[in-house]
C-alpha cells in the first residue's frame, strides 16, 4: 500500500511537478519513459515517488521514446493504468506508436511538454510537437498554466479510461513557460483525487487469462476502414459529451471550471484572438488593458484541441467581426492549423468574420503584450473595413524585413 503525501491546500509547483503529482495521486501502475527536456521532471518525479513508496507502480526505463510508448501500449493492453511524458524530438520518435495506442483503444495518458522540433535543435517551447500529434487519434487537452496541468491530468484519466471512450489522451503544457514556472496550485488530498478517477476498470485486458485475446492484429482493405471509422465515431460522438461531463463533475469536486472552448470577454467583442497554451493568459491581460481604452476585444483559448470543438467554437465566435488565429508552429507551406480549423468551423455558418493568421513564438520566442496590441489593432481595422486590411498570414516577433504571405 502506497504512502499518502500530505499536501498544503496551495502548493508552489511548476507545470511538471503539477503533472507528476497528478500521476502519483491517480496511482499510475506503469510509467515507461525516456526523459527529454523540458518534460524530464514529470517522469523523474514519478520515479522518485515510486522509489520512496508513494506509488504502487513500476517505472520502466527504456532505450527510446518509441520504446517508451511501446512499453506503455503493452502495459495498457495487459490491463494497467499507464502514463508517460515526452517532448519535441522524443514525441516525433513516438509518433508511430501513438497511432498504435489509439487504434488499439488503449487509455494511456501522455503528458506532452510542448517544445520546438529541430532543425535547428531547440529546447524551448512552441507547439510543433502538439500539432504533429493532431491526426494520431488521441484526445488532446491544452493546459495554460501549472494549475491546468494538474487538473487536466485527472480529467484526461477520467475520460480516456471510460469504457464508452477507451482512447488515449495527451495533456499539453508549454515548455518552460508552464513546465518550469512555479505558481500556486490548488491541490486535492490524495484520497479525494483518487476518488475522482477511482480504481482502474480493465477492458479486454491480456491478463484476464480466462478470456484470451490478441491485441494489435493486422487488417487489410477488408477491415481496416471499419476500424478507423469506429475510432473516429468514438472521438466525434462520445468524447465531447464525456469531457463535458468530466468538466462538470470536476467543478463539483473542486470549484474549478473548465470548458471545451475557453472564453474571456468574448460575449460583446468585435475582435477576438484565438490561441493556445500560455499565450491565452498573456492575451487576457492585453484584453483587459485594451478594454480599459474602450476596445471591444476578447480572447478564445482552445482547451480541447482534439476532438476539435467545432460546434462550441462556432457558437462562441458567431457575433465576432474579426478573428486572429495565432499559430505557434511553422505551417511549412500553408496557413496555420488554427487558421484552417477556424475557417472550416465558420465557413458554412452565417458569421462572416474576417479571419487572419499570425505565426509567432517559434523556438521559445516571447509573445509580448506589445505584439498582441498590434494584432488587436489589425483586427480593429479588419472589423471596421469588413475585409482583411493585412496579408492573411503575418509573422510576429521576427527579426528582419516584415514577413507575410497571401
Amino acid at each position: 500500500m502506497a504512502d499518502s503525501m500530505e499536501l498544503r491546500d496551495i502548493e508552489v509547483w511548476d507545470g511538471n511537478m503539477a503533472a507528476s503529482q497528478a500521476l502519483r495521486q491517480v496511482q499510475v501502475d506503469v510509467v515507461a519513459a525516456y526523459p527529454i527536456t523540458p518534460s524530464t521532471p514529470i517522469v523523474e518525479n514519478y520515479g522518485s515517488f515510486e522509489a520512496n513508496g508513494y506509488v504502487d507502480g513500476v517505472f520502466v526505463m527504456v532505450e527510446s521514446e518509441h520504446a517508451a510508448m511501446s512499453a506503455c501500449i503493452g502495459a495498457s493492453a495487459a490491463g494497467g493504468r499507464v502514463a508517460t511524458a515526452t517532448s519535441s524530438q522524443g514525441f516525433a520518435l513516438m509518433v508511430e506508436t501513438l497511432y498504435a495506442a489509439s487504434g488499439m483503444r488503449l487509455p494511456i495518458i501522455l503528458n506532452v511538454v510542448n517544445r520546438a522540433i529541430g532543425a535547428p535543435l531547440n529546447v524551448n517551447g512552441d507547439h510543433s510537437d502538439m500539432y504533429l500529434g493532431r491526426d494520431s487519434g488521441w484526445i488532446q487537452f491544452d493546459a495554460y498554466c501549472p494549475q491546468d496541468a494538474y487538473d487536466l491530468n485527472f480529467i484526461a484519466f477520467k475520460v480516456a479510461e471510460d469504457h464508452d471512450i477507451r482512447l488515449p489522451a495527451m495533456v499539453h503544457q508549454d515548455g518552460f513557460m508552464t513546465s518550469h514556472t512555479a505558481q500556486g496550485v490548488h491541490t486535492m488530498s490524495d484520497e479525494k483525487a483518487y476518488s475522482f478517477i477511482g480504481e482502474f476498470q480493465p477492458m479486454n485486458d491480456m491478463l484476464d487469462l480466462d478470456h484470451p485475446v490478441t491485441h494489435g492484429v493486422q487488417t487489410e482493405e477488408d477491415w481496416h476502414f471499419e476500424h478507423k471509422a469506429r475510432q473516429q465515431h468514438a472521438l466525434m460522438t462520445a468524447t465531447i459529451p464525456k469531457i463535458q461531463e468530466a468538466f462538470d463533475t470536476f467543478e463539483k469536486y473542486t470549484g474549478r471550471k473548465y470548458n471545451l472552448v475557453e472564453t474571456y470577454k468574448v460575449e460583446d467583442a468585435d475582435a477576438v484572438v484565438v490561441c493556445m497554451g500560455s499565450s491565452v493568459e498573456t492575451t487576457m491581460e492585453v484584453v483587459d488593458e485594451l478594454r480599459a481604452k474602450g476596445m471591444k476585444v476578447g480572447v478564445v483559448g482552445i482547451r480541447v484541441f482534439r476532438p476539435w470543438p467545432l460546434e462550441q467554437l462556432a457558437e462562441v465566435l458567431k457575433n465576432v467581426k474579426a478573428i486572429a488565429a495565432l499559430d505557434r508552429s511553422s505551417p511549412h507551406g500553408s496557413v496555420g492549423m488554427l487558421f484552417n480549423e477556424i475557417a472550416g468551423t465558420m465557413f458554412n455558418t452565417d458569421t462572416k468574420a474576417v479571419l487572419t493568421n499570425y505565426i509567432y513564438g517559434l523556438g521559445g520566442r516571447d509573445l509580448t503584450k506589445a505584439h498582441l496590441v498590434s494584432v488587436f489593432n489589425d483586427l480593429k481595422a479588419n472589423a471596421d473595413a469588413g475585409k482583411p486590411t493585412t496579408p492573411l498570414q503575418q509573422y510576429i516577433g521576427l527579426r528582419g524585413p516584415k514577413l507575410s504571405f497571401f
Partner: protein
Amino acid sequence: MEKAGWDEFEIGTILRTFEGAIRDIATTLPEDRAYSQSSTFNSSVADWRIEKPLFNKDYCIDCQFCWIYCPDTSIIARDKKMVGIDFDHCKGCGICAQVCPTNPKSLLMFSEQQDEDIALEQWPKKEKKEKEAGED
C-alpha cells in the same frame, strides 16, 4: 468470417481465441476447444503451400522432433505418438522433414499435387551408411 459493419465488432484491434470463458485449456485437446471463428485454428492457410510433407508411419520412432520444431503447431501428436499433419495450417516449410532422424525419413516433402498412396509405395529405402576413411 462474416464481414461486419463498422459498429458491429468489439473496439480495439482485438481478436478472441475462444468463444466464452475457458478453463484448463492446457489439458483440453484442440478438437475439444471452443475456438472462436476469428481464431486462426478455424482459418485454413493450406493455399500458402507449394510443397507438402507426407508421413510414413512405418519408419517413425515417435521421437517428437517434428512436433517440437514445427513453427505452426501442425504436427498432430497424441499420447506422445505422431498421428499426422494438420494440412489446414501446415505451410510446407519442410522443417519437419529436415529434422526427422530416421533412415529412411518418416517425413518427406512432395509437390502439393502428389498422390499420397503412390508416394508411400515409392518411399525411399534405407540408405546404406557409407564407411568413412579409417573406419573398419
